């Protein structure tokens, strides 16, 4: 993986918890789990505009997210748990039974085109 690396953390929010009751198929839930938040400085550095799609890559997979600026420490990215984050996760649990779901090293590539329907 070339380029600047970020630390990606998946997390939950109260909005996500509420939307589970609306339905995981709802457009709002899909949009939420396909969004990521990062520092405005980081976005400027890699040429990513507010609302632009970006491809996040780990050593296990890749997924597209819509980028938003937020109060996040420089070098970090936060995304809500969901199907897009599953694609970034490796299957190794290190003998614990629990896959790592936080602190992944990732690269971010701005996308010019719209994401595929699966990740939308």
């Amino acid at each position, binding site marked *: 993986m070339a380029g600047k690396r970020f630390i990606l*953390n998946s997390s939950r929010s109260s909005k996500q918890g509420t939307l589970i009751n609306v339905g995981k198929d709802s457009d709002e839930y899909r949009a939420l789990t396909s969004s990521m938040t990062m520092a405005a400085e980081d976005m400027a550095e890699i040429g990513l505009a507010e609302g632009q799609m970006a491809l996040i890559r780990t050593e*296990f997979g890749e997924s597209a997210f819509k980028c938003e600026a937020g109060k996040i420490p420089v070098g*970090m990215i936060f995304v809500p748990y969901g199907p897009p984050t*599953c*694609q970034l996760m*490796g299957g190794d649990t290190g003998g614990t039974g629990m896959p790592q779901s936080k*602190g992944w090293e990732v690269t971010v590539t701005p996308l010019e085109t719209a994401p595929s329907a699966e990740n939308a």
Partner: protein
Amino acid sequence: MGGKVSCTLGEVKQRADFIVYWGGNPAECHPRHFTKYTLMQKSKFLPRGRKDRTMVLVDIRETKSAKASDIFLQVRPGKDFELITILRALIKDQNVSDEAIADTGLTREVLDDLVQRMKSAKFGCMFFGMGLSMTRGKHMNSAALLTLAAEMNAFTKFVAMPMRGHGNVTGADVMMRWQTGYPFGITFNRGYPRYNPGEFSTVDVLVRGDCDAAFIIGADPGGTMPQPAIDHLKRIPTIVLDPHVTHTSKLARVHITTAPQGIAAPGTAYRMDEVPLPLKPPLKSPYPTDEYVVRRINEAIMAKPFWLPDGSQPQMLTAQV
């Protein structure tokens, strides 16, 4: 390391004057925690409520919970274990180098102040979330924090408790512990329970492709597990019991809609402090309960003829007898 020094949330509500949230964001994920148990409640021992309590938040970013805290400690990502180990040394007045402290992203003054506050508290409680247990170090981070809580009892009353997520996950752990002696990662393939996380835990079994069928009750691994595990669920016959259509339902061969627990189905749910609470459903549902469906499946399996010739038993059962 080992063991958990804990208490009920009722004791926290009545007595805890020093609260630490570590790697958790209760303002978003447990929105009633502050108001019902930890911060806002007035009690016999803490008559002024919030004014009698101190809240510390330890996290890698300033979450919404930081606004509710008195002290926010922004630890460097992946340095939780190191910070807990430093705190374990500092409470015992052992030497810690400046470099080790700086590596955690905090200063000696801040940690000295924290240790002094912890020791002078009457009843401290540390709640830890997935920011501690699912990041690098995983169960070792949790074990370190539980050890810190145990060691703090040399100075004052201190407990620790995980911030459990989702409905009744504590109940699943408690029931498995009661029935088998182990909380999760259990196999019965020799006719008796064996425990080995990393080998018999769900993700590992799925990723290795060891199972040829899956029965999922009230969970959505299709939306939370690693992709290799999801891919295997797609390959094998997967049966889902859930009130909602989930990501797992879509990859399953069979989805059975069941009544939601506590809303239209009775039962018992375990609170995060492992206190069982009876559920009294206010509504009726046209769908069966999970218990009813599982019982029907059990009866159907029992009615089937045994899969080995008459008089023979599986080898593992013979070995056991």
